């Protein structure tokens, strides 16, 4: 199993529930949009998926590896693009990527080859020597996505990666990541913007700590536009 599987996951900050009994499955090579308004629990789910937080209940499997039992194996299969920018602005793009590669135990010629391939995939190779500080928002995000691909992850998580970007940069990044899923990477893309989700994408709607609907976008929406369906679902009181 090369995809992502979350079973009966719950989490709370003190007494405030952030996730309640969340289960979802993204088959290998699928693009899944995790759609939810602000405060729905998307970032908490990402923190649990990346082991920044842990929950005593529930189970997370990444490419077949249980995150609690074998965290090293599971995390080595995971590529992550955080909502917050995490590039070191004083370092060049290549230095940033080399640092990340080393955190995965990749160094030397192997690292150079992988970094070049990842940057090339995101059309960022010619900017490798530029300082991250000098890149615009869209290019910084592409550098971060390239960084997340260095170790050939089976599953790629992106937490609202288009926040703060203009329309062209958003379209470009959304397109790049859809292409990655077509090439076999399993993608979980958290967003609150319905226009980033294609009709053929898999969809999970999260609201007030619970999964309200999941399936293929077309199946969840029927004939209605996603934006309308999303507003209807999240307007209903729990």
């Amino acid at each position: 199993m090369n995809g992502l599987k979350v079973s009966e996951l719950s989490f709370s900050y003190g007494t405030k529930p952030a996730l309640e009994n969340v289960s979802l499955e993204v088959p290998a090579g699928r693009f899944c949009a995790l759609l939810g308004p602000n405060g729905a629990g998307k970032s908490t789910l990402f923190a649990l998926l990346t082991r920044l937080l842990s929950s005593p209940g529930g189970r997370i499997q990444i490419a077949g590896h249980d995150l609690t039992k074998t965290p090293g194996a599971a995390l080595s299969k995971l590529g992550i693009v955080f909502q917050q920018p995490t590039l070191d602005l004083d370092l060049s793009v290549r230095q940033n990527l080399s640092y990340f590669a080393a955190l995965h135990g990749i160094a030397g010629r192997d690292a150079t080859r992988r970094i070049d391939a990842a940057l090339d995939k995101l059309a960022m190779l010619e900017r490798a020597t530029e300082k991250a500080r000098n890149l615009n928002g869209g290019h910084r995000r592409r550098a971060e996505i390239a960084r997340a691909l260095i170790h050939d992850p089976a599953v790629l998580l992106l937490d609202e990666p288009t926040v703060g970007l203009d329309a062209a940069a958003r379209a470009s990044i959304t397109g790049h990541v859809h292409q990655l899923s077509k090439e076999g990477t399993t993608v979980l893309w958290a967003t609150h913007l319905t226009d980033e989700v294609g009709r053929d994408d898999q969809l999970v709607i999260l609201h007030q700590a619970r999964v309200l609907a999941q399936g293929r976008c077309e199946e969840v929406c029927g004939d209605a536009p996603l934006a309308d369906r999303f507003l209807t679902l999240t307007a209903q009181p729990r």
Partner: protein
Amino acid sequence: MNRYATSLLAIVKREALRFIHQRERFIAALVRPLVWLLVFAAGFRAALGLSIIPPYQTYITYETYIVPGLCGMILLFNGMQSSLSLVYDREMGSMKLLLTSPLPRWWLLFSKLVGSTAISVLQVYAFLAIAAVFGVSMPVPGYLAVLPALIVGGIMLGALGLLLSSFISQLENFAGVMNFVIFPMFFLSSALYPLWKMAESSQLLYTICALNPFTHAVELIRFALYLDFNGSALIWTVLAATVFTCAALWGYKPSRTSEGRKP
């Protein structure tokens, strides 16, 4: 090279690059002890009479006495500076990158500790060189013998910084660290005055100073600079380093972050 060594080298290199990019930090780290050595010590040398105490074989000037304490001060401030960097990293998100590496978390945090200690030790040597230029020098082999003592002391104080960073949730809270950690640790130690002087004025303060792990780190450095070995100081410092490191690793456990705060 295996992946553990690869990640260690990368983390140390990043700490070094960050230090190079922050020239003001390097200058501040040097100026602070030099002000103490060249101004404070000059003013106090007449007020404080020092008897011959180990490891010294003869009467020494006050400037000579406080050099090991100032080496400790550099390690202490740098340990706290790295703690501040860690809190900053967490607020800025780059800490997430480190903590989501597939390598064990204890190894990643230990690598951070090694990186910050390496920077501290380099700063101490820069300070010792400048102090020697101003005529406050140690026996030449002492400069080499002090290296292990600086490493142990640096790891102990870096681990304390790591521990604090796991509990400080925001940068704004950092001022409290200055008031409640750095100053008491520094002043309630043998860095500026020998403990017997403190015992003369207050037995309670003497006891606190004697229990302060920073006192033992300073004494370890002092003895090593004079090619002497202080076993109890070593044991105390290693013990404190172990306790601080274990507590910091516990503080960074994923399950602990569940207790009410966002990552």
